[in-house]
């Protein structure tokens, strides 16, 4: 299944870049867990550890003006799309310097500059958005691609099927990336789906679909490139089922009663980072000093990001009602609806200037 064997990789420089990308996500999230345990971060925290090859491989194939829609397990997608680790951590700290000024948290990272449309925590709720973003591109005659990530749990939702149908019916430029990590929270795929071959579901809507080893970043990248190119050149929606595994608990509250430790251990033998690292090392493509330098670089990036988040400022409570409606230049209070919304006369006026 995997193309990663001990004969090495075709382009060591590029592979090193992918290794770096995966490691950046891994170290960021290990730090998140640490900060969560130290109560610096609260709310839900869903880490992507074990699945990094998926985001790393797919993001590599996108152009700057393409769009990305992701789920609540999206720290890695945001980071690899170009949102800084500092802005991500500051968001989890609930600080004004966070990518959503503390309104979103771990599950709702957004970034207009990189066209990163969340951070969607309703399972399958992001799929219709991706269809619409692609519809807008089609109607405006733009050659852009919208990539939509979702877990295999989403395929049980009606919104998944409605979105497959709309995208195929209208031949929209969307790439659907199903991150099949085998568990919808604690419910195994085989316990929730009558048909467990997910690519078949997309094929039923006449969408070209294929399954990919989601632990092999090179295989993911190759499949994604093929699919993205097809979508961009007018081939309609495409679908990838990326077979992967979540090494950690669903969230920080999950006691993992639903799976055996031996199963986790077995999958960890195919850790996407170790797989690539091992293949490169065995072929003499990853000198020890390069690996050491890479780790040091990543550690430095994360350490700087933690410092940025630590030194952030809480969003002022006077801004509480901001962004419920768009700021409007004519009313000077962040939208006509805001003051009204609470019936609170104190909500008008100060600190609510537009822009």
């Amino acid at each position, binding site marked *: 299944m995997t193309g990663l064997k001990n004969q090495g990789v075709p382009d060591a420089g590029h592979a090193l870049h992918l290794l770096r990308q995966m490691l950046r996500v891994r170290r960021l999230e290990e730090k998140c867990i640490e900060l969560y345990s130290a109560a610096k971060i609260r709310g839900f925290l869903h880490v992507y550890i074990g699945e990094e090859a998926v985001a790393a491989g797919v993001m590599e194939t996108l152009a700057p003006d393409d769009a990305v829609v992701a789920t609540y397990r999206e720290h890695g997608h945001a980071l690899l799309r170009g949102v800084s680790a500092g802005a991500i951590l500051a968001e989890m700290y609930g600080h004004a310097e966070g990518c959503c000024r503390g309104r979103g948290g771990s599950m709702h990272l*957004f970034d207009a500059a990189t066209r990163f*449309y969340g951070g969607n925590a309703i399972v399958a709720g992001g799929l*219709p958005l991706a269809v*619409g973003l692609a519809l807008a591109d089609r*109607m*405006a005659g733009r050659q852009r691609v919208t990539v939509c990530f979702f877990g295999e749990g989403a395929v049980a939702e009606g919104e998944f099927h409605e979105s497959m149908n*709309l995208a195929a019916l209208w031949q929209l430029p969307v790439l659907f990336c199903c991150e099949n990590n085998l568990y919808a929270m604690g419910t195994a795929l085989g316990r929730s789906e009558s048909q467990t071959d997910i690519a078949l579901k997309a094929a039923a809507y006449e969408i070209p679909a294929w399954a990919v080893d989601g632990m092999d970043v090179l295989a993911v990248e190759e499949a994604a490139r093929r699919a993205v190119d097809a979508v961009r050149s007018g081939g309609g929606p495409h679908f990838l089922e990326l077979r992967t595994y979540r090494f950690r608990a669903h969230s920080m509250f999950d006691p993992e009663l639903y799976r055996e430790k031996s199963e986790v251990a077995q999958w960890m033998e195919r850790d996407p980072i170790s797989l690539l690292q091992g293949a490169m090392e065995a072929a003499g493509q990853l000198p020890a000093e390069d690996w050491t330098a890479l780790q040091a670089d990543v550690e430095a990036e994360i350490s700087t990001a933690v410092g940025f988040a630590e030194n952030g400022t809480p969003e002022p409570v006077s801004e509480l009602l901001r962004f419920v409606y768009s700021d409007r230049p004519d009313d000077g209070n962040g939208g*006509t609806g805001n003051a*009204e*919304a609470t019936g609170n006369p104190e909500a008008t006026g100060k600190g609510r200037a537009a822009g």
Partner: protein
Amino acid sequence: MKTTYREAMRAALRDAMQRDDRVFLMGEDVGRYGGSFAVSLGLLEEFGPERIRDTPLSESGFVGAGIGAALGGMRPIVEIMTVNFSLLALDQIINNAATLLHMSGGQFNVPIVIRMTTGAGRQLGAQHSHSLEGWYAHIPGLRILAPATLADARGMLWTSLQDPDPVLIFEHGSLYNVAGEIDDDAGAVDIAKAAVLRHGDALTLITYGGTLPMVLDAAEQLAGEGIEAEVIDLRSLRPLDEHTILDSVARTHRAEVVDEGWRSGSISAEITARIAEKAFYDLDAPVERVCSAEVPVPYAKHLEQAALPSVERIMAGARRAVGAGG
């Protein structure tokens, strides 16, 4: 010129499509069928299937696609056949349209307009007849409009399309055939303020949407009894133009709220509470409410009519309010 509510809506759609290339209409049977209430009849021929876009029966899918298209720079108008069907799209309307701007820290506003039919009175039973606009008005992030007049049917759409945030327009099914005169050059209207449609000093009748015609009728008949009622058409349920309500109550000292929605936890309850909070000392009588009976809307004509507000009930409430207190 002479027009109907339906024709005024259609003129508004045509006007918007002509003025802005980003505008398109999407929904079930809006194209070939001509719209389930014939609002978009003829527009497919004029604008083509890309911009008058028929959808499958996938409310969540196409409402969500409308939200995505709005994020992508378009100005979609999404038509949902009835408010009851909009419940299939609640996830998209409430979890996405109403929240994205806030969750993203102000980065992603959603300029979508969602139109739907609301209300009872046509013997369509409990899955096609409810009035849930007040329920939507509970949601921060949405703007909720209820055009009740021909001028508003003609003018609210364009203003809504200029709004950077999601706007839901509720069209009461009984209004589509209402005919009357509007100005030849009728166009965009404000969508923030309530309108005082009749002046009077005996009490304030507050309503919106489908019950406006019966409230105006009741006010005429009350005038014959010597009770001059002021009539407020709310027009917008969120934001609620509290100022116009309180200003009127300060002059009339009595109020009656008429709402086809159910009474409990409703927009009529909200209005009544605000009067109690902010105009308590202006009141000379308890606030009266005329709402629908708390029952799923029944089919049989006599049962349905018994469940809904009526001119008689409105007049009875007004007489109680005027007769009470000093």
